């Protein structure tokens, strides 16, 4: 009995003595994640993106901080898709867990709310899923965003369809009443109007909408050539189905960002054909990455091996957020917030996600907008020209 007690005491002492040493060996990345609540699906995807980055960095020995290898450690909490909780968790990550760096929660709204806390404490935060300009125009020094601004996407889309479907004149825009969908819909209206298109319908819907038949009946009466819908994937699935129910036909149907995810096709089957979308990233862009994965395609292979499906821009952006932090720490040769922040502002990071340059405003300035369409059950890149995988198919199936 005495021996057992002595062994336990010795082991406890060893564990306690080792704890500070282990803690010094890792670089903590604080991650508030929406693992439950309305954003649970997107939250789970973000987590996959972070996890593959952390494991890839650690598999190669960790981050080289001035010759000393330090492993990454993800400190994560579920903020239940509630903005207030996300803010509390970021405070906890900074004050209790003492994380030196943060990854932002999902979406522009929650990123904007939590960025205030990160700024107050001077902790660099990299956002993987915030593209709205108003998140980054607060002149915060600690907020960085992987996704380039929404207007780069809508400008690319309008230019493409105007060139390839000159008969498109009338546009209807329908957006979820939430920061990102409203912002990209607003940019779409600006881009379309600027290009001389007639925006015949522009409205939002509330997050608890369970039926779109009435608003689609309204849109049908206006006879648009192009419908631009943006919101949660489940909303877009229902909108596409109810369009078919009502016999609503258009030359171009663009949905942001549902069709980028495989579940969109799985839930609408043949109705997914010819639905167009946009993206910040696709593996076929095949950017080279000398730091971690090799290239976009190799990143996707690694992701597929781990999670048994292709990565979308969302997981890729999460990985890129984590990767640029690791690269900045190596470049700074330090884990000091000041040194890493300086590198994040100045350096152009060449990653599997493409070149990322955060610049002074903090939002990635490198435009690599993709116009995409589902054809024969595959998501193909239509533009830019150098990545083109197919020609635009006009019109969507009736059923």
């Amino acid at each position: 009995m005495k021996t057992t007690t002595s062994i336990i005491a010795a082991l406890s002492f060893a564990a306690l003595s080792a704890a500070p040493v282990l803690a010094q060996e890792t670089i903590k990345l604080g991650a508030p994640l929406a693992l439950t609540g309305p954003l649970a699906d997107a939250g789970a995807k973000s987590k996959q993106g972070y996890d593959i980055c952390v494991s890839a960095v650690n598999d190669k020995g960790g981050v080289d901080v001035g010759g000393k290898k330090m492993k990454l450690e993800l400190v994560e909490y579920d903020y239940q898709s509630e903005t207030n909780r996300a803010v509390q968790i970021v405070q906890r990550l900074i004050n209790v867990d003492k994380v030196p760096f943060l990854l932002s929660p999902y979406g522009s709204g929650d990123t904007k709310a939590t960025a205030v806390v990160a700024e107050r404490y001077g902790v660099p935060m990299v956002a993987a899923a915030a593209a709205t300009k108003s998140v980054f125009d607060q002149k915060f020094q600690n907020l960085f965003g992987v996704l380039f601004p929404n207007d780069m996407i809508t400008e690319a889309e309008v230019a493409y369809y105007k060139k390839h479907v000159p008969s498109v004149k009338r546009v209807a825009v329908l957006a979820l009443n939430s920061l990102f969908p409203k912002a990209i819909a607003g940019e779409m209206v600006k881009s379309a109007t600027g290009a001389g298109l007639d925006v015949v319908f522009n409205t939002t819907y509330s997050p608890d909408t369970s039926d779109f038949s009435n608003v689609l009946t309204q849109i049908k009466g206006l006879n648009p050539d192009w419908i631009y819908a943006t919101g949660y994937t489940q909303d877009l699935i229902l909108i596409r189905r109810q369009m078919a129910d009502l016999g609503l036909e258009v030359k171009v149907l663009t949905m942001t960002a549902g069709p980028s995810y495989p579940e969109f096709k799985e839930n609408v089957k043949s109705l997914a054909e010819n639905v167009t979308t946009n993206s910040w990233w696709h593996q076929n862009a095949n950017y080279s990455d000398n730091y971690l994965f090799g290239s976009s395609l190799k990143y996707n292979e690694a992701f597929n091996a781990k999670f048994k499906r292709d990565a979308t821009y969302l997981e890729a952006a999460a990985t890129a957020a984590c990767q640029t932090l690791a690269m900045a720490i190596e470049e700074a040769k330090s884990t000091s917030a000041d040194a890493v922040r300086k590198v994040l502002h100045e350096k152009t990071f060449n990653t599997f996600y493409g070149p990322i340059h955060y610049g002074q405003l903090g939002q990635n300035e490198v435009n690599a907008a993709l116009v995409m369409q589902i054809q024969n059950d595959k998501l193909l890149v239509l533009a830019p020209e150098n990545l083109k995988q197919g020609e635009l198919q006009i019109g969507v199936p009736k059923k």
Partner: protein
Amino acid sequence: MISQYIVNGLLTGGLYACLAVGFSLVWGVLNVVNMLHGSMVVLGAYFCLYGVQQLGLPLYAVAPVACVILFVFGYAIQRGLLNRVITQPILITLTLTFGLDLIVNNLIIHVFSATPQSLVTNFGTIEFAGVRVPVVRVGGMLVAVVLTLVLYWLLRHSKIGRAIIAVRMDRHAAALMGIRIPHIYALTFGIGAFMAGAAGCAMALIYPVTPMMSGVFLGKAFVICVLGGLGSVPGAIIGGLVLGVVEGLGTLTLGQQWATSVGFIMMMAVIVLFPTGIMGKKGYE
């Protein structure tokens, strides 16, 4: 065009009715605001999805099983947990079901994930005088309304149904008549869960199902219950249809962003002007 809006509203309203009837019954009979109801609808939807997609069984075989599982689940919840606090103020049972809702909803996310899933069907549409009616919605609505009417008939004409109504009218008198109150309570909650399961199966045909829909379903059930009258089965049908049509007309006049708010404004007006709801005056059947 207005006829299309009304048809849209009626089709949605029929589903709303099925969604709300179990919630209304439990509130009316047990005086329990069942915050778990939305998650039970979602659970029913996932059982149907699992049976059809994973086990390859036809929906008509899976749906009754899903409803029975929900019934057993509901019976057990009431018998094992809610009966222990049923005599406490309504806030206690509300809090308990709220807690259960959080647990069940998170379990659903862990087991089925939050990725949208649905039964993809293509039964086509019927077009009449310029109005398009999707067959799957008509089917879903008919099943919902028929089940609701069957429940109404059972409550009025079966021994158990009369016992449920008796307990609602006067619990103490019913006990003196030899009715086993805890059993009737559990049975009522079980029936509420059964109807939630049926609504879930109908929803899986029409909506992409995610665990997060539970909040939306609960909100609709709440409005319909107040509109139709607590505990009133025909009230749930009327309330559902009224809500569906009012939301449709709200979209037409005020825009889609206000459609849901119109329903809640109507609910507040009914609470102030007709506290018993449209059908809640005559009794609880």
